[in-house]
């Protein structure tokens, strides 16, 4: 029996056109990019949504928000579609208690400090301690299901293998380390306190309102104005790039939330990985770049060049920090583009989930069009 169905039946919930009404979800990080989409999707599916986030002024110290160009906090979306919006801070456990004065069929823990420039103390406080606070309160309140947003980044570089959910964690940067630590904490709560946990591990997310991560690849390409598509040889070394459209991600999150067998499981949620060289060719075309070309590079030479490039970007990062600024592209983003990340989405497909954007190029085309209409690209 799906927990929320049990709960709604107990509360003698109305039926509406065959669908169950009165399903209630809590969405954290509801004013962020993914959070707004999660709230909107749940609303469209007839869920009663309680949305929560911190105040914009509290968020400012963490996030790289650059006014209209790179917003990361979207006021108004959740307020319009959620039945209730409550301000709460994950790092303050007391502030979470009022959220749980009612039963939730599902808690979608989307909130996270997703900033590659952030330092460990901040990342740990929000992503690890904050998640633990929420998990403890949720377990005590007896929520039907707890969906944790993790990341594919917890696996790290796995040396040219396609990675499934059982692969060991080997995170390569502070953000991904904080997410790996977050998962450990939540699995402990699952084992020791019976938190009905399901973990979704999305690839880099993109979609309308997205401004950090995949966007920076597009932004950098557009800013450079010339595309250099590196084709590695021998071909077996060609890198792949994972990604997921936010629409698929929110659908997948609800899909696993509604399935009993998904409890206690983790799922990679991403479109089929395509070779980086194909992706870059597609992006150059989709962005309407006037000039781009494919450059064949021998793998050892590429590794050496990427190593030097990374060293330079790290130096730029240190220089930026010493000046109180931040580099145009964060170091981990360069690492992602110079390492092999290939993940399997077979497990969630085996569960019966179907992606709208199985080929990421379709989703990216929609997203690029959306950005171009707004002058973001």
């Amino acid at each position: 029996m799906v927990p929320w169905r049990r709960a709604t039946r107990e509360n003698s919930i109305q039926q509406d056109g065959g669908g169950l009404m009165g399903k209630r979800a809590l969405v954290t990080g509801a004013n962020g990019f993914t959070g707004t989409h999660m709230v909107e999707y749940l609303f469209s599916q007839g869920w009663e949504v309680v949305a929560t986030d911190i105040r914009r002024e509290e968020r400012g110290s963490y996030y790289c928000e650059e006014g209209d160009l790179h917003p990361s906090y979207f006021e108004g979306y959740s307020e319009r579609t959620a039945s209730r919006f409550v301000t709460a801070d994950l790092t303050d456990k007391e502030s979470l208690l009022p959220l749980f004065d009612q039963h939730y069929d599902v808690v979608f823990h989307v909130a996270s400090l997703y900033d590659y420039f952030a330092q460990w103390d901040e990342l740990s406080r929000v992503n690890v301690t904050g998640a633990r606070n929420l998990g403890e309160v949720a377990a005590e309140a007896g929520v039907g299901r707890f969906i944790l947003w993790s990341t594919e980044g917890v696996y790290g570089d796995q040396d040219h293998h396609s990675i499934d959910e059982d692969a060991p964690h080997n995170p390569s940067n502070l953000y991904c380390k904080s997410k790996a630590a977050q998962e450990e904490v939540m699995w402990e709560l699952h084992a020791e306190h019976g938190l009905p946990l399901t973990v979704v591990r999305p690839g880099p997310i993109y979609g309308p309102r997205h401004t950090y991560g995949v966007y920076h690849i597009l932004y950098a390409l557009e800013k450079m104005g010339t595309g250099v598509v590196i084709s590695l040889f021998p071909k077996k070394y060609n890198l792949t790039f994972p990604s997921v459209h936010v629409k698929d991600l929110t659908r997948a999150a609800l899909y696993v939330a509604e399935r009993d067998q998904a409890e206690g499981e983790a799922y990679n949620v991403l479109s089929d990985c395509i070779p980086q060289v194909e992706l870059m060719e597609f992006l150059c075309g989709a962005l309407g770049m006037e000039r781009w070309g494919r450059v064949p590079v021998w793998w050892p030479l590429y590794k050496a060049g990427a190593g030097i490039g990374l060293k330079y970007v790290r130096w730029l990062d240190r220089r930026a920090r010493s000046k109180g600024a931040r580099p145009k592209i964060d170091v981990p983003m360069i690492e992602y583009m110079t390492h092999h990340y290939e993940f399997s989405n077979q497990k969630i497909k085996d569960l019966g989930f179907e992606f709208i954007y199985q080929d990421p190029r379709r989703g990216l085309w929609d997203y690029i069009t959306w950005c171009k209409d707004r002058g973001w690209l």
Partner: protein
Amino acid sequence: MSLCILDIPVLIVIGFVISYLFAKVWRWDYPDIYATLSTVVITVFWLNAILCAFDVIEPWGVGWVTTEVNGWVALFIVLAYPLWFGWGAERARVLFGRAPDQGGLLWPFSLEEKTKPFRPAWRGGASKE
């Protein structure tokens, strides 16, 4: 036929500079200026080459870098002037960008943002803001 071998590097440099100025300063306000200037420059260099070929004037750099070449080879070199000009221009676009909102391949390697914001696609192209 006498040709100044420096014509080619000078064309590359002029192409580079005009292309840079066009991309950074003129592109949105004066969309035709690159075509105009490049036509003028190539015309001047061609005219110079023709006048030299008919011994009306002496090639510049006489006694230093002027070179005597076979007529057909000279014709080939002179006809290739626009390509050298274009090659220099493209190097500037690759390094510094093609429009005021671009920074070229050097863009990620600096901390300061000097490029202008993108314009929405429906206002794009060469029209004024």
